């Protein structure tokens, strides 16, 4: 080779890397791709706590902070110990706040990630970053990457479902530059004030004007047209439209059937808190999430909001926690009793944490330098605490996990090497973790 210049070498290696434009994980919903790394988890339920819940009042016990209450902190405001009592829970003895009495009983399932930090101190940017790995530009969301990497398990339902996302935040379940089949299917929308709930409908899921029987004849006619054209032209596109109509026709039955929770046993409904008015809304989402997991969806996200406690923290945080405590504990118990927890990763996280100081004596500011999220279920060590903030809870100091590290960790739990999950767009291979990220493999069971 006489022209073996650096430029040519670069060209050659780039050519090899981009054999078909897709990365190593070119999983398609058409092919049943196996995770390349050993993994137990097959599905993810992501409980997205919008508004950023305080870590020092929930899962990051700070006895030293209590002693400093009233003293001036480093940001110039007075320190505030948690108004909530903490207690060691389960055999593992994890410290969990009294805000979560029921979830506390499931402590031995939880792996608390106490060294989380985010680069963004404001809600919209931090939420976008947490979902896509980038706060500036629209990028594929975590759920889309997972579905792209692992493919779909059930051809009758969408693989990525976002239950009641916050309104106007489609970036959180967007497929970005990934093909739209990896986009989150939105069901319902968060009501104003962001407490979840709202209507739960899938657009165009039923035809209100004609009977099932007539529609089946109409679909048959459409499919005959598609098949004729496919035979005539040999164009795969005609086959794809044919298949999408098939799927849609099946979804008209499969989706409402999954979403109909009326046939769940009374005891199960009670487990999720459906009988109490304050837990009913979030409990229903959790139950739906389990039903979608059972049906083979890859990634289900539920949002629950109003954790932005600058004021009236004691009262309002109690109310917010009450809304999710029984439902989440119920979800973990139910997954466990059905043998699904082994293969399901449950993730709980806000976009950042809150300051140990308080300007109002009953509220906390934004703190992106340290916070807690937790994971439970498939392939994760339960009853574990990983990482730490300093004794006051200002900053993550040990087992630090950036958003990229957290993404790498979640992908690793799903059996995906975050460095190999790539998609070629605008001339280069993109990753969820960009050029960053290190998975916290110590938490794998």
């Amino acid at each position, binding site marked *: 080779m006489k022209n073996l210049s650096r*430029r040519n070498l*670069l*060209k050659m290696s*780039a*050519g090899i890397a981009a054999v078909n434009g897709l990365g190593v994980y070119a999983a398609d919903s058409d092919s049943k791709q196996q995770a390349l790394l050993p993994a137990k988890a097959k599905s993810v339920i992501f409980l997205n706590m919008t508004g950023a819940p305080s870590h020092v009042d929930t899962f990051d016990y700070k006895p030293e902070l209590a002693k400093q209450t009233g003293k001036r902190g480093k940001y110039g405001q007075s320190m505030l110990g948690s108004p909530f009592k903490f207690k060691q829970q389960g055999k593992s003895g994890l410290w969990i706040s009294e805000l979560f009495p029921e979830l506390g009983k499931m402590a031995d399932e939880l792996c608390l990630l106490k060294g989380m930090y985010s680069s963004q101190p404001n809600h919209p940017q931090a939420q976008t970053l947490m979902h896509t790995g980038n706060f500036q*530009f*629209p990028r594929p969301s975590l759920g889309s990457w997972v579905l792209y990497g692992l493919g779909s398990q059930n051809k009758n339902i*969408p693989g990525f479902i976002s239950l009641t996302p916050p*309104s*106007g*935040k*489609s*970036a959180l379940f*967007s497929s*970005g*530059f990934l*093909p*739209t*089949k990896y986009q989150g*299917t939105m069901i319902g929308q968060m009501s104003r004030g962001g407490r979840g709930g709202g209507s739960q409908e899938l*657009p*165009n*899921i*039923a*035809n209100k*004007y*004609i*009977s099932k029987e*007539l*529609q089946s*004849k*109409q*679909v048959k*006619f*459409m499919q*005959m*047209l*598609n098949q*004729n*054209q*496919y035979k005539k*032209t*040999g*164009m795969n*596109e*005609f086959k*794809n*439209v*044919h*298949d*999408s*109509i098939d*799927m*849609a*026709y099946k*979804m*008209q039955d499969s989706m409402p059937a999954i979403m109909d929770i009326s046939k769940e046993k009374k005891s199960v409904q009670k487990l999720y808190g459906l009988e109490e008015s304050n837990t009913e809304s979030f409990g229903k989402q959790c139950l739906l999430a389990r039903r979608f997991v059972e049906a083979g969806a890859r990634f289900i996200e539920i949002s629950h909001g109003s954790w932005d406690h600058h004021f009236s923290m004691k009262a309002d945080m109690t109310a917010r926690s009450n809304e999710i405590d029984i439902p989440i504990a119920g979800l973990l118990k139910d997954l466990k009793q059905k043998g699904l927890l082994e293969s399901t990763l449950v993730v709980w996280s806000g976009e950042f944490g809150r300051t140990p100081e308080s300007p109002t004596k009953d509220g906390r500011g934004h703190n992106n330098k340290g916070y807690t999220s937790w994971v439970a279920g498939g392939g994760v060590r339960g009853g574990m605490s990983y990482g730490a903030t300093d004794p006051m809870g200002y900053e993550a100091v040990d087992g630090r996990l950036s958003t990229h590290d957290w993404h790498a960790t979640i992908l690793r739990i799903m059996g995906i090497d975050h460095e190999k999950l790539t998609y070629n767009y*605008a*001339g*280069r291979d993109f990753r969820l973790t960009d050029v960053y990220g290190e998975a916290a493999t110590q938490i794998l069971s």
Partner: protein
Amino acid sequence: MNQDNNFGSTGEAPTHPELLDFLAISFINSSWSIKSLIKQIVLTKTYRRASDMNQKNFLKDPENKLFWRISPQRLDAEVIRDSVLILSGQLNLRPKPGSQVYETSKTATRLRATESTSFGTHSNYRSVYLPVVRDLLPEMLKTFDFTQSMLSAGKREQNNTSSQALYMMNSKFILSQSDKWAKLIIQQKKTVDEQIKEAFAMSYGRYPSTSELSGARNLFSSFRRSKGLAKKKTSTKDFVSLSAICQSLLASAEFRYRQ
């Protein structure tokens, strides 16, 4: 050249470099007129080729790099929507005067997804005149791979998803436009066969094959005889039954592919 935005060393080399040079020079000579450039391209024999399959050519050049045919392509969301409105006779070619977003915001404190539909899909303006509000894209456009308004995209995605199929099967927009289209055809053609043929000609630019015609006739009579329509007027029975055929034509792949 196959790429839309990678002209660097990691991209593919152009298949017709001389042609690119020629076009570049005439682009400059036409005072950088993009309109002239497009006209020059679309008037060529190459651009106007049919998309018909030719096995011999296909084996030699499966990716059609040498342009032995026009590659079949999914229509863009806007084109699909406008085509539906043309068939139903509803398309309004003029933009709505003023700002639809401003009008809406006079009564609402905050634009929401539900309100966006009032100036979105259900209006009959050309799709280019629909306001694009970040995060509140009209449902129809979003469903058919409209790009995110915040994202630069050299190329549109072309996906065939179940939400598109559901949109074609069940959405208010498609159902009501199919009804209007059927009524238009009935005004012009007397017999059911003529009406079916007209529907094919209008949407696909061809007449139905024998099997398609008989399939359409069967569908027509299934609807015509159905219980749901039993008590309706004859004229209603006719247009509802024809509308089912019209809707099927819109939902099938041939309608959304340029061939």
